[in-house]
Structure formats: C-alpha cells, structure tokens
C-alpha cells in the first residue's frame, strides 16, 4: 500500500467542513438562473421539428403573429453565424449544427423558429400556430446501419462517421493484436449495448438575457462553463466578447448536460432584437426529449486469453451514437479510446472507436464521458473471461491489474495506479478472502523477474516497451489448444 505522505500538518484540507451553501439549498433560498425576473421580461419558446428527418419547404408564421402577446419570431435568417460547433473553440471541425434549422431538420425536436411573447402561455400558443410544410426523408437510427453505403446521410459532408484526422474512427494500435490472438488459449467475444440516458438535472437548462443601458447584455445562466458559453455566444451572434457579461455559478445539477451552448445564444439574440429581457428555460419535456443525452453505445470486444487468465490481446470496436450533430461526442470517442482497454496490462491492443451520426436527438457530454460504458463493457467481459478460464472474478482482475511503470496502450507510462490496493481494500470491506499472493501484490513497478516467477510473466507483458512487436516481449504462451476456443 503506497504511503500517504503529509507534506505538513493540514488544518482545513481533509476536514468535513460544512458546505457553505447548505442552509440556502435546504431552505429554498438559493437563487437559480430561472429565478431571475425583470420588468418587461419576455418568454421564448421554440418551434421544433415533429419528424426525424425532413426538408423544410415552407414556414408560415401568419397565424402565430396574430396570437395576442406575440412579440416576434426569430428564424435562421436572424442568426448572424447560424452554423457552428460547440467544440470549435478547441479546434474541432467542421461547423455543422444549426442554431435554427435552415432547409432541413435532422432530428425530431430540432429548433426551427423561436417565438418571443409577453407570456409563456402566449409563446406556447404562437408556437402551436406556426405551420410547417415538411417533406419527410428516410431516417437512420442504428449506428452500424448508418455506416452502410446506402444509408440515409445525416451530415452535410456525405458520411455518417466523424473523421478523426483522416480516419473514420479514433484508433489505438499497440503491439500486434493478431499475433496475440494466435498465441491465446481462448478467444472470448461479446457485444455490449447501452441506450441513450437523460442527465435529469433537478433544474432544467435555462437562462435569462438582459439588455443593459450601456449596450451590453447580462446573461444569467446555469451553464457548467461560463466562458465557454460566452465565447460560443459571441461567435454565433458575431459580437465582441466584451458586450457579453455572463453570471452563474449556481447549477441545480449538470452531469455534463449544461456544457452544450443551446439556450444562451438564442435568448441573447432575442434580447438584442426586442430590447427587452428574455427568459428561455427548458420545460421538463424539452429536457427529456431534445436536450442532449448520454450517447448510446455498441461495444464489441474480442479478447485473447491464456489458460491462467492473462489477457494477451484485446480488440475493441465501439460505436457511439452521436445523434444528428457532434456537440461534445467526438471528444468523448478520444477519451473512450484512451480507456477502452480498461485498467489492465494487455500487451496487444487494437481499438477502433466510431462517432456515428443518426437522426436522433444529439448526444453530448455526460458524467463518465466515453468511459462509463467502456467500464461497463470491460467489467462484464472480465467476468466472462473468468468463467471461461475457470477462475473467480477477483483472480481475473488481480492477474491482469496494471501497475506503475506499465506502458498503457495509448503509450503513456502508468504513474498513479492503485487498482490492486483498491481491490484489496474492497475485499476487506466485504470479507472476501484473498489468496496470499493477492494480498502480497502491490502497484509498485514490476521487477524484471525471470519468467515463471511470481509476477514475472505479467511483468513482461505489462512493461514491454511501446511499439515493440508482440513476439519480442509478450509472455511465453503455452501451446494453444482447441479446448474452449470459439
């Protein structure tokens, strides 16, 4: 067990100081973004696509404009920079999401026209009076169907895969995975699926945008990233950042769902166009149906395993369902690729992680970004391997656990590994009896012991230098037999 070294006695860090906002939260006095009200405040509601995929032939606002309390409508023509991508700020391309739909909608619920009215009820009534003339298009919902050559194309660049520097997937290549399979005693394969999940924050996404006397705009928002939202809003509205003042910091649950910049640009635009404060807060059904979700995943894992449980090759092919636009999902695929082999020392790894576009509500960041479903798939796979090899679920994890100094498949040396110590503590917590060998293990760097000595073989597997051919440093494998091989 690595030692906790206290650099000096600490006074405050390490103590369960009562949270400074506890009393305000539990007495209902905390002020959230949607609680701000201002004289003359208008309400914004969105006209959304009723279908999954369609061309927009015409939008008729004439009946909506006659609703009492209607103030104005905003269409894509009102948005100075209507096509954007949230991650453009960190260099991710191309710009592909529409603030308001132009000629085409790509998911059910995609915003088309923003209605600003004196009351929320008037805004909703005007939304109901907008007439859309749509020509429905074939839609695609399955990630692997979406990658077939004849699939309906969701994006504007002719493919339903996000391109990672010339590749249709984020790749990891480490060692020689085919050589690893060839030497393995068992091949264990499975496919893991998950469905989209809603962030379900207590406070729905929202903001209030207020025009100030000096020509600036104050935006009270529950974004998780204040400057990120400000900078994206400045790009979409084509205004200098100094004209925007974002106030927030108190969020009633985020879980990644409030890193998207969805409400602030259009609310601020409405405040600019009307000269009045504008409130745009998602209803619960909007939060459930059109705010982004955790991506659905399909993860195929093929493992080559030795008789004693050591994994000598792992091939992962993953598909994340990005929905109609990229939002934060391409970045999740990179994080996924870095973590898809799990906390284990595997000498030969190949990962292909696809970000796939379909005609559904865009997915985006959510707690565990790209890793949660990788951990699910890998940890169920570990039990499958244990069953196949005939060892218990604890042993399969101790046998393969990574150590400090091991080269990870993405070619970074492990330096803060404590998986072994954490499993030892968990075993003690639940009263599981570990073997003497398991109790003696640590995450300390492996010593290059002779093969066959405790830890020696796994050491050779784990500390093998990056890029070396599998045959050079991989563990000596017993002769492969047909028994148990798929």
């Amino acid at each position: 067990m690595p030692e906790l070294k206290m650099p000096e006695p600490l006074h405050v860090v390490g103590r369960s100081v009562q949270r400074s906002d506890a009393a305000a939260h539990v007495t209902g006095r905390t002020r959230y973004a949607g609680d701000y009200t201002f004289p003359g405040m208008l309400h914004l509601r969105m006209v959304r696509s009723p279908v999954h995929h369609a061309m927009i032939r015409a939008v008729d606002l004439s009946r909506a404009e006659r609703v009492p309390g209607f103030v104005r409508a905003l269409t894509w023509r009102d948005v100075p920079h209507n096509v954007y991508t949230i991650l453009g700020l960190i260099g991710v391309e191309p710009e592909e999401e529409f603030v308001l739909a132009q000629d085409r909608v790509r998911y059910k619920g995609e915003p088309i026209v923003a209605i600003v009215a004196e009351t929320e009820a008037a805004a909703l009534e005007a939304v109901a009076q907008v007439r859309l003339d749509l020509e429905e298009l074939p839609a695609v919902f399955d990630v692997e169907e979406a990658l077939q050559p004849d699939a309906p194309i969701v994006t504007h660049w002719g493919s339903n895969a996000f391109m990672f520097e010339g590749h249709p997937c984020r790749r990891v290549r480490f060692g020689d995975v085919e050589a690893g399979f060839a030497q393995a005693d068992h091949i264990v394969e499975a496919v893991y699926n998950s469905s989209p999940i809603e962030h379900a924050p207590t406070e729905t996404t929202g903001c209030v945008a207020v025009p100030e006397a000096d020509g600036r705009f104050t935006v009270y928002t529950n974004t998780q990233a204040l400057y990120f939202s400000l900078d994206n809003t400045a790009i979409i509205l084509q205004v200098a950042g100094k004209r925007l003042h974002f106030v927030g910091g108190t969020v009633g649950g985020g879980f990644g769902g409030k890193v998207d910049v969805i409400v602030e640009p259009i609310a601020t635009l409405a405040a600019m166009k009307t000269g009045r404060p504008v409130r745009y807060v998602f209803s619960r059904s909007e939060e459930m149906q059109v705010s982004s979700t955790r991506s659905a995943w399909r993860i195929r894992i093929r493992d080559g395993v030795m008789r004693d449980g050591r994994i000598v090759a792992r091939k992962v092919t993953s598909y994340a369902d990005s929905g109609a636009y990229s939002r934060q999902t391409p970045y999740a695929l990179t994080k996924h690729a870095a973590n898809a082999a799990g906390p284990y020392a595997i000498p030969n790894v190949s990962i292909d992680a696809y970000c796939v576009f379909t005609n559904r509500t865009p997915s985006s960041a959510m707690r565990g970004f790209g890793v949660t479903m990788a951990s699910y798939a890998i940890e169920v796979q570990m039990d499958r391997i244990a069953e196949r090899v005939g060892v218990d679920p604890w042993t399969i994890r101790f046998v393969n656990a990574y150590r400090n100094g091991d080269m990870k498949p993405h070619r970074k040396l492990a330096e803060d590994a404590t998986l072994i110590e954490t499993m030892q503590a968990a075993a003690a917590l639940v009263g599981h009896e570990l073997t003497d060998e398991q109790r003696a293990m640590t995450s300390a760097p492996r010593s290059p012991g002779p093969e066959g000595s405790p830890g020696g073989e796994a050491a050779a597997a784990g500390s093998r230098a990056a890029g070396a051919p599998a045959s050079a440093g991989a563990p000596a494998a017993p002769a492969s037999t047909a028994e148990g091989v798929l």
Partner: protein
Amino acid sequence: MAKLRGTGIAAVNYPTGMNLGGDPSQALIHATTSGSFVVALSSTDLGQGLRTVIGQIAAETLGVAADEVVIDTADTDTGPHCMGTFASRATHRVGNAVKAAAEEARTALLEVAALELNAPVGGLVLDGFGNVLVAGDPGRCVRVAEVASKAQFEYGRTISGRGAYMKPKSPVDPETGAMDPDSTEAHACTIAEVEVDTETGQVAVLGIRSAYEVGRQVNPALVRGQIVGGAWMGMSHALYETTEPYYPNPDHKPKDFSEYVMPGPAELPEIDCVVLEVPSSTGPYGVKGVGEMTANSPIPAIVNAIYHACGVRVDDLPVTPEKILRGLEAKWATESAAAAGGR
C-alpha cells in the same frame, strides 16, 4: 419461481481532467480591510460543493480558518477564465489555480506582517487560526486582520494573489492513438449484491459496497456524498434509465419523471465505502478527481451480480425486468431441451 441472490464485482480507473489538456483555470484573491479573503472565480458549482472545497484549499494555503474565505463565483466581469466544471477537473484545476493565488497572497501578507513584527519574512509562519507568528518566538505575533487593515491604511499595499493552472494541450497520433489523456487516475472497486425475482424479473439491489482511491480528500463528507450519489446513479443506469426504451427504435420517449423511471428512496440499497488516499503528484495537496467516476463501477457490478444470481447475462442496458424474463425463458428452454435430449 424464486428470489435468487448473487454478488458481482467491478474494478475501474478514471482519469482526472479534460483528456488532452489545454483546459485552463484561473483565480484571483484579495484581502478585505478586516482580514477576510475574497476568491474571485468564473467556475461553477454544480451542487457537488465546489465552493466549499475551493474555500478549504484557499484557507489551507493562506493559513486562515475556512470561514474567513469568501468564494465569489461565477461572473465573467470579475472572475478570471475557467474552462468549466466537467471532466472531474474542478477540484484539481481550480484547486491548483486557487492554491497558486493563495500562495502569492500569503507572501504579500507576510511581507506586511514582517514590517509590523520587525522580523524577516522567512521567519514568519501562519498558524491556521488567523495569526502570524515569529517562528521560535511565540510571544511575537500579529492577527491577520490587523495586518490586512494596516496594509490598506498604513502601508498602502495590496494583499492579493493571482493563480493559474493548465495542463498544456497535447496531440493524438491518429495512426497509433498515442496520447496523454489524463492528469492522474483515481480507482474504485465495487461489490454489488442483488436479488432477482424470477417471476417478475424485478431486481432488488441489496447492497453496493466500494473501495475508492481518490488521492487526498479535501472534504471527506463531500467525497462520500459523491460516492453515495454516484452509486444511486449507477444503479439507475444499470436497471432503469433510458430515453429510448426500445433503442434504436426512437419511439416512446418520456416527457417527465412519471415516464422516465428512476429508483426512489425505497429502492436504495445499503451503500457503504472505504476511501484510500494516495496523493497525486499533480493535484493541489495531492487531490484526484472523484466527480464522475462514482457512477461507473456500480453498473457492471450489478450486471455481474444478476448473472451470478440467475444465470442470465443481459448485454443491453438498462437491464429491465422484460429483458431478464426473456433471458430466463431462453435459459429454461435450453436447459429443458438439454434435459430432454439427455433422457
């Protein structure tokens, strides 16, 4: 029909920080006339307790009590840039920025205290309770509040500090995936116990017990809050939640919490944990990020426990009663066919 019990295990690691770096956070600190300190940020508190934790790091570094620190967040006119609260980054990144700002402010404080005490700066210590002492000479001391006041009104000096933290942005090799995707790694191992009702397909989670290794805990009660909340979310992901119950079919999307079902207090199991502290080399006082990862290991632990209980492996989240019943029917059909064949 029976109620069958099983246990399952899962072990995970989780990276701290935006995975390729390039995600700065900054902080400004200044003393008030009465010796309190205001920390100005644009970072957001999602309800996890960021204000409290950042206040503790500032107080620790400044050498004052936690209630002498006011966290002023978040305002883009007054708070310097922060990339945001996500990627389990805030305690690590904002904490590092605040620690750096507090060190600068503390130096400014000690410089004024040195004038007051007529002692070299290097010989001064803060006792953590609002006093500056001359090391080795306990009789000579001055209150932080007095130093702050005199800095303003007698010396005309500022007691303030700036801090920034950024892991530089790193590239990914598109051919091999070589990259530097973390600042440190935290770990967890979860054991779940479930009871499967083979008549209804319902799964009752009886226990979620975990060991966590999260670097130094700034506030153990808030760490425990994350672990308990994350276990609930993981259980909910494993058994209940989706916006598309028949994914990839997009129909039947829920509109509210009566259609989007989650476990309530009655369904919550006993949730227990132990926390190991192995300090990271990059976090302030050795912290790692515990924010996101707590939902991760409960999911596979529960799925593995279901298989252990009833022999059905559902590889499709969420594991609903319908999927379990279909799995049981398939399993029984296979078993009875095998039995018939063996006769």
